[in-house]
């Protein structure tokens, strides 16, 4: 539905960040969770041609237009979700991983996740003691309409609780934890099923890690401005 081409120069031996002018869509099909509507997916591809060389690289991703909001309800203490402005009653399954020997095939993911959809679930929570799930997992959650609650790698029983009490300060190398977290976000952030990042299981990570995660994952100021004016909101 949209094609846009820009001419740019990239200096020798350098790396830069480029933002396309925004692409406008009128009433595109929205992505909905299982049970609320279709899981409409668009294919977004980015290509770069270099003068004198031809196509240099390409990238593509299935993408869904959806807006997910959530907040802690004062009355119940539970987290309430809305998708595309509509409240959704979450029916979730807890997930560690598909196989303890990490034989994580696409067929296995497809079967496991379809099973969750067939059970009328609309969310999978990836527990902090397991994996940051793989793009193939997220692909099938996109396809079958399972929202994903993804936790980082903190559990109370290894980071602060247990007998004897474990180290409450989390992993020894906090910089490494944050590096891994940032890289994982980059790996998974374009999947429409990705609904919520959570610091860990049943507890918050050590303060410096928690602060850094909250800061890195907060809404970009551009979209805060848009929200303040009541003009729209971020997906």
């Amino acid at each position, binding site marked *: *539905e*949209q*094609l*846009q*081409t820009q*001419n*740019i120069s*990239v200096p*020798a*031996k350098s*790396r830069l*960040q*480029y*933002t*396309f002018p*925004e*692409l406008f869509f*009128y009433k*595109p099909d929205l992505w909905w969770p299982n049970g609320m509507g279709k899981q409409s997916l*668009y*294919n*977004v591809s980015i290509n*770069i041609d*270099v*003068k*004198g060389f031809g*196509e*240099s*690289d390409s990238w593509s*991703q299935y*993408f869904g*237009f*959806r*807006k997910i909001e959530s907040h802690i309800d004062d009355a119940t203490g539970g987290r309430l979700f809305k998708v595309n*402005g509509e409240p959704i009653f979450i029916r979730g399954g807890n997930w*560690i991983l598909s196989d*303890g020997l*990490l*034989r*994580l095939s696409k067929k296995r993911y497809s079967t496991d996740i379809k099973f969750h959809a067939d059970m009328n679930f609309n969310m999978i929570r990836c527990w*902090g*003691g397991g994996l940051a799930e*793989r793009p193939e997992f997220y692909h099938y959650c996109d396809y079958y309409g399972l929202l994903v609650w993804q936790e980082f*790698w903190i559990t109370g*029983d*290894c980071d602060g609780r*247990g007998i004897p009490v474990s*180290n409450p300060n989390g*992993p*020894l*190398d906090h910089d490494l934890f944050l590096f*891994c977290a940032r*890289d994982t976000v*980059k*790996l998974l952030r*374009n999947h429409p099923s990705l609904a919520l990042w959570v610091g860990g299981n049943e507890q918050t990570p050590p303060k410096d890690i928690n602060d850094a995660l909250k800061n890195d994952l907060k809404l*970009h100021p551009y979209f805060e401005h848009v929200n303040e004016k009541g003009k729209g*909101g*971020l*997906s």
Partner: protein
Amino acid sequence: MATVQGKTTLDSGWFAARFNEVHFNGTQLTTTNPPSGPILPWMEALVPGTVLGTLVKNKVVPDPFYGLGNEAILDIADSGRDYYTFWFFTTFHCKLSKNQHCDLNFRGINYSADVYLNGHKIVLPKGMFRRHSLDVTNILHPDGNNLLAVLVHPPDHPGSIPPEGGQGGDHEIGKDVATQYVQGWDWIAPIRDRNTGIWDEVSIVITGPVKIIDPHLVSSFFDNYKRIYLHATTELENRSSWTAECSLSIHVTTELEGSIHLV
């Protein structure tokens, strides 16, 4: 003949061996002394997968998820980390033409590794949940036939399992940035190798002088979802020694049926 641009997944033809049973170093394995096949100590390897997955595949140990099979497998706390430190070896074909570049990508290794390609060593840092992208353009063989060996080290703190078990064993695994269920939980027995291995996709990616890195797509919504904007940002890296004049395009399509797209 040049290799076609794009991604090739390296998910077959791998061999593995316990590192202290191999009498060559990484440079020798990827130059003069590659394994000639699944001949002891080498065996066919599961990549992506774990060391334990490879041992199960080759029936060296029983399947830990059947009966009491897990009890028959040596735990890393008793064996020591060396027991689950393994070599993984494969070959791949990649012959570049002028101005092409090649990245060797690992999407997940638990926990750290030494990579040898055609005799060159590259150390991969620790961390189970990080990607590694190595520019190997200058160390590929001109004839296109390349030898790759990866020495994978287990987590630094695999810990031990108390006789009574318990959530997260003795909690040592929490010192590393790795999955924690592997020390056993109320719903699973300990994983003996702590999931050591090349546990996620390995690939080579051929590009031209400029490559696309980690695009980010965000949408914003207006007028009750009638007007929607797609915001796309990407990093670009020019690895050539000249300024690249580029034409960068973004293309959004919807698949109507099969491979028919609406543009």
